C-alpha cells in the first residue's frame, strides 16, 4: 500500500487537478499526457479499456486549455475521464463488451456524455465491462477480462470493472459506470474507489444501452467523495428524452460535503450481516459504524428489513425479463453483428444471436423468456414484482426512523479470476448486498473502509484487498449519502491508498 505524497500528475483527484489548472500551474495537455503515459505503462497488466482514444483526448485537452485561458472553465474542464463502454459516444466505438456491437458507432451522444462535453470533457477511453453489463467480475467481456489493480490475479468486480480498475490504477482521473444490481458499487469496493449509484431517475438514461430499464442508472466512479459530488453536479438532472428521468431540481452536491454527522440517524440492518459475509469485511464495516458514531451519528443496530433475503431471486427474475425485451433489438438487421449463413431471415436472426451473444447474456435472455412465458408469468414475474413492493415498503419504513443505512457492499473482497465463472449462481451472490437498492430504486454509495488480507500468492505483490462501505438513503436524498460518505472519508485515510503497479 503506497501512501502519497509524492504525487504523480495522474494520481491527482478532480478537485486537486482543477485547482492547479485554475492557477495555471498545470495544463490539461500535460495532465492528459500524464494519464495517457500511465495507460501505456500499466494497461498491459490491468486491461481496463476496450478503446483508448488518445488522439481525441489530446484534441479535447487543447480545447480545454483554450477554455481555461479564456476564463470559461468549469470544475471538470480538461480533466481526463473514462466512460463505460455501454454509454453512447458519437462516432467512438461503443461495444457494450459484446461481439454483437464490436463495430457499432453510435449516431448520437448519450445525455451524460453531452453534459460532460459541455463541461469540457477529455475522454481518454471507453472502459471494459461485462457483456451488456451482465456480470460481477468483468470476465463476461467478449474481449478480455480486466484485472484488479490491487492484485492482478483477482477480478475488479463488475460490470463496471473497467471503470473501477481505471480509476484505481490511475488510468483516468474519474469514470462513469452504470449500475443495475451493483455494477458501480461492487467494482468500486473491490478496487478501493468511490462509486455512486444515484436514485433511479436522477440521471437521464438517454444513450445508455438498455439492460434492465426499471433498474439501470448511470453514476460516477471517483477517487474521493468531493470528486463524486463534482461529477454529480454535471450529470444529474431532468432530460425530456428519458421519460423516467425525474423532473426535479438538482441541488449543488458540494454543499453536502460537511465533515460531521451530528443529529444524523444511521441504521445498520441486521439481515445484511448474516452467513456468507467474510470476517474481515464484517470487521471493517463494524469499525466504520463505530467511526460514524464517533463523528456524531446516532446508530441504530436493531433496524430490520425482513425481505432482504428474497431480493436476489426477485432481481434475477425482473432484470432478465426486462433484458430479454431490450435485447430483442439485436436482430442482425439494423446494426451490430449479422450472421447471414442461414437460408431464411429467421435462421439468420437465430444464428446472429447464437454467435453474437456470450453465455451470460444467453442465460439471462432464457431466464427472462422463461419467466414471462405462458403458464409461468404469475409464478415468477408477477410474484417478483409483488415481492419488490414489499422490499420497497420495508425501505420506506426504515427511512422513517433513519436518515441512512449502512452495510457491506460486497460480502467478500475481490475473488480470483476464474473462481466463479463455472457457477453462475455463486457469481450472482456477489451482489447480494447491492441488489436490494436497485429493486427499491434508492441511491447508495460505496466508499473505501479498510483492507482485508489477500492470502495466498499475488502477482502484483499487493498485500491487501480493499473493502467498501455501503451507504443508502431514501429516494433523491443523495445529499445525505454524500454527507455521511464525506464525513467518514475525512476522518479516515483509506481513500488515500494507491495500489503498487
Amino acid at each position, binding site marked *: 500500500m503506497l501512501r502519497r505524497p509524492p504525487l504523480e500528475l495522474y494520481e491527482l483527484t478532480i478537485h486537486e487537478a482543477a485547482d492547479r489548472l485554475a492557477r495555471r500551474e498545470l495544463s490539461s495537455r500535460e495532465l492528459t499526457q500524464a494519464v495517457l503515459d500511465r495507460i501505456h505503462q500499466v494497461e498491459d497488466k490491468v486491461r481496463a479499456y476496450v478503446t483508448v482514444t488518445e488522439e481525441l483526448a489530446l484534441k479535447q485537452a487543447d480545447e480545454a486549455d483554450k477554455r481555461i485561458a479564456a476564463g470559461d472553465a468549469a470544475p471538470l474542464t480538461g480533466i481526463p475521464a473514462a466512460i463505460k463502454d455501454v454509454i453512447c459516444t458519437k462516432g467512438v466505438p461503443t461495444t457494450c463488451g459484446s461481439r454483437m456491437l464490436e463495430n457499432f*458507432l453510435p*449516431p448520437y451522444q448519450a445525455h451524460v456524455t453531452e453534459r460532460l462535453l459541455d463541461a469540457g470533457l477529455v475522454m481518454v477511453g471507453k472502459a471494459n465491462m461485462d457483456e451488456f453489463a451482465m456480470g460481477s467480475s468483468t470476465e463476461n467481456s467478449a474481449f478480455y477480462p480486466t484485472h484488479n489493480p490491487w492484485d492482478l490475479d483477482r477480478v475488479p468486480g463488475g460490470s463496471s470493472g473497467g471503470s473501477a480498475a481505471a480509476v484505481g490504477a490511475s488510468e483516468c482521473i474519474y469514470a462513469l459506470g452504470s449500475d443495475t444490481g451493483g455494477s458501480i458499487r461492487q467494482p468500486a469496493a473491490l478496487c478501493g474507489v468511490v462509486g455512486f449509484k444515484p*436514485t*433511479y*431517475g436522477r440521471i437521464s438514461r438517454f444513450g445508455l444501452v438498455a439492460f434492465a430499464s*426499471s*433498474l439501470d442508472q448511470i453514476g460516477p466512479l471517483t477517487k474521493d467523495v468531493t470528486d463524486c459530488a463534482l461529477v454529480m453536479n454535471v450529470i444529474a438532472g431532468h432530460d425530456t428524452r428519458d*421519460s*423516467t428521468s*425525474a423532473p426535479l431540481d438538482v441541488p449543488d452536491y458540494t454543499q453536502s460535503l460537511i465533515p460531521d454527522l451530528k443529529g444524523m440517524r444511521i441504521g445498520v440492518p441486521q439481515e445484511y450481516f448474516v452467513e456468507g459475509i467474510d470476517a474481515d469485511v464484517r470487521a471493517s464495516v463494524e469499525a466504520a459504524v463505530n467511526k460514524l458514531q464517533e463523528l456524531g451519528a446516532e446508530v441504530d443496530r436493531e433496524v430490520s428489513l425482513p425481505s432482504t*433475503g*428474497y431480493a436476489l*431471486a*426477485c432481481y*434475477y*427474475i425482473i432484470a432478465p425479463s426486462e433484458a*430479454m425485451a431490450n435485447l430483442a433489438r439485436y*436482430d*442482425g*438487421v*439494423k*446494426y*451490430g453483428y*449479422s450472421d*447471414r449463413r442461414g437460408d431464411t*431471415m*429467421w435462421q*439468420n*436472426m*437465430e*444464428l446472429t*444471436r*447464437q454467435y453474437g*451473444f456470450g*453465455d451470460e447474456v*444467453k*442465460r439471462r*435472455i*432464457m*431466464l427472462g*423468456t*422463461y419467466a414471462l*412465458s405462458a403458464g409461468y408469468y404469475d*409464478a415468477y414475474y*408477477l*410474484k*417478483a*414484482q*409483488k*415481492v*419488490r*413492493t*414489499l422490499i*420497497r415498503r420495508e425501505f420506506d419504513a426504515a427511512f422513517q426512523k433513519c436518515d441512512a443505512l449502512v452495510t457491506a457492499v460486497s460480502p467478500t473482497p475481490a475473488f480470483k479470476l476464474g473462481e466463479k465463472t463455472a457457477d*453462475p*449462481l455463486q457469481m450472482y451472490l456477489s451482489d447480494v448486498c447491492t441488489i436490494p437498492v436497485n*429493486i*427499491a*430504486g434508492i441511491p447508495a454509495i460505496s466508499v473505501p473502509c479498510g483492507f482485508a488480507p489477500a492470502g495466498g500468492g499475488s502477482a502484483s505483490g499487493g498485500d491487501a484487498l480493499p473493502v467498501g462501505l455501503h451507504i443508502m438513503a431514501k429516494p*433523491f436524498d443523495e445529499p445525505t449519502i454524500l454527507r455521511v460518505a464525506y464525513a467518514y472519508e475525512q476522518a479516515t485515510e483509506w481513500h488515500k491508498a494507491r495500489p503498487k503497479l
Partner: protein
Amino acid sequence: MAITREEVQHVAMLFRMSLSDEEIAKFQQQLSQIIDYFQVLQQIDTEGVPPTSHPVSLENVMRSDEPRPSYPPEDILANAPQSERGFFRVRAVLE
C-alpha cells in the same frame, strides 16, 4: 431438473436464438439450478400486495405530438449490415 432439454430449446426459440447441443446441455443444468433457487419466493406471503409498476413513482409523462427533426437516415443506416436505397436489406420474409 427444473427445466427439460425441450423447454430450453423452446425458450430459446421463443426468443429466436439457436443453440448448439453442448449449449443446450450446459444451460439446462445451469438454468435448472437458478430456477430452483427462485422457489424461495414461494415462501413469502404476497396476498393483497400490488405488483410494482415503477420503482420511484412518477405521474404519466406526456408531450404534445408535434413533428420535429429526427436523425439523418444516412447516419442511422451507417451501422446497418446491409442497406439499399435508404432501406435496411433483409432476406425475403414471404416465400
